[in-house]
């Protein structure tokens, strides 16, 4: 049985959603409120209000509440009018469906998202393990912070939802992109620990600097472990991006591994997209 949460759903949408899932799944409904708890749900269904900005805000808040977990947020447009889905997707919605879409399509798409995610392949672990190990090591060494790797999921795009993200483009034998993304508070706490300062003394520039340095160290220390393997890459200059909701171009036919790490009750994510130029076989 899967647990699904419908938020702000009108009776019309409730009826459709309940019809789609039948009696096999547990669908609950709630009104949107700040601090909404999403733990334990496999899918969030949000009915789209009229005000785009408000909806985008709601999605952002729901994404925050997901705490980097891969919970699909399906936005349902109950109005006749077709709307561009891009702003909602960028904000963190997983998919935008319309009540005017054929029901079988909606059912298949939602069911698809409810299918459990796969575990990494052995060959994927081969290159994910060093990233995991080094990310933990870097924060332990530079900030004396204990970091625990929680889980990994796979996506076909890099969509980042943290407040501040460090990005590294990879070139050489293997190409790709690495992105580390943090919520502001955790980033600030980490940088304060790195500097041995109080959080109040940390300004925005130091946080940007810190995130840039973290992705730099993750890539720099990991690349050495790939010498002589197809995953060996060269690094360039780290970029820092601010604000949640970015989509970054990716390489075709490559999967993006999203590694979730935990620091106390807070989380951050490392996106690893790496593709050897020569095929492995």
């Amino acid at each position, binding site marked *: 049985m899967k647990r699904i949460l419908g938020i702000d759903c009108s009776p019309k949408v409730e009826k459709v959603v309940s019809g789609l899932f039948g009696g096999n799944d547990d669908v609950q409904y709630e009104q949107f409120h700040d601090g909404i708890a999403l733990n334990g749900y496999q899918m969030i269904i949000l009915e789209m209000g009229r005000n785009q900005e408000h909806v985008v805000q709601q999605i952002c808040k729901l994404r925050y509440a997901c705490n980097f977990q891969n919970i699909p947020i399906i936005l349902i447009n109950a109005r006749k009018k077709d709307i561009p889905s891009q702003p909602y997707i960028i904000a963190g919605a997983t998919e935008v469906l319309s009540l005017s879409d054929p029901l079988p399509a909606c059912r298949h798409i939602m069911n698809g998202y409810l299918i459990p995610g796969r575990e990494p392949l052995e060959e994927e672990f081969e290159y994910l393990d060093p990233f995991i190990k080094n990310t933990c090591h870097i924060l332990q060494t*530079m900030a004396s912070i204990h970091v625990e790797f929680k889980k990994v999921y796979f996506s076909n795009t890099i969509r980042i939802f943290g407040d501040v993200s460090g990005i590294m483009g990879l070139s050489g034998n293997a190409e790709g992109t690495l992105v580390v993304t943090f919520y502001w508070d955790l980033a600030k706490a980490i*940088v304060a620990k*790195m500097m041995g300062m109080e959080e109040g003394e940390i300004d925005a520039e130091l946080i940007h*600097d810190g995130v840039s*340095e973290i992705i*730099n*160290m993750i*890539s*720099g*220390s990991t690349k050495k472990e790939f010498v002589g393997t197809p995953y060996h890459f060269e690094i360039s200059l780290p970029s820092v991006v601010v604000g949640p909701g970015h989509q970054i171009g990716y390489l075709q036919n490559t999967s993006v591994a999203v590694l979730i790490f935990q620091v106390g009750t807070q989380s951050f994510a490392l996106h690893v997209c790496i593709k050897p130029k020569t095929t492995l076989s």
Partner: protein
Amino acid sequence: MKAIVADDSRLIRGIIEKTAASIGFEAVQAGNGREALSLLEASGGEINLVLLDWNMPLVSGIDVIRKMRGDDRFKKIPVLMISTESEEDRIQEAIRAGAQGYLTKPFTADQLTDAIHQVLEKH
């Protein structure tokens, strides 16, 4: 004693400066290799140690070392390279260029202190 700390990250400069200060170095900061060189020029021979990042804008750390080693005034100033570049051939490249020591990021304060002491001893 005076040290130049060159890194494009203000955060890393801050961390290094702190550790350097704890063992008696007064640090001047440079945000890139060119600044580091101009600080050397301006120092009038008072610099006792140079702590250099590898990847910096304008002039890279390795180029700073090469320039220093080609200049009689700065030839003898010990250099510790501190970089995320962690592959053995990169480390060798820095040593060949004239760095006395090499520390890979991430590092702890103790590791940095040890590395500085080693560089000074070698010197």
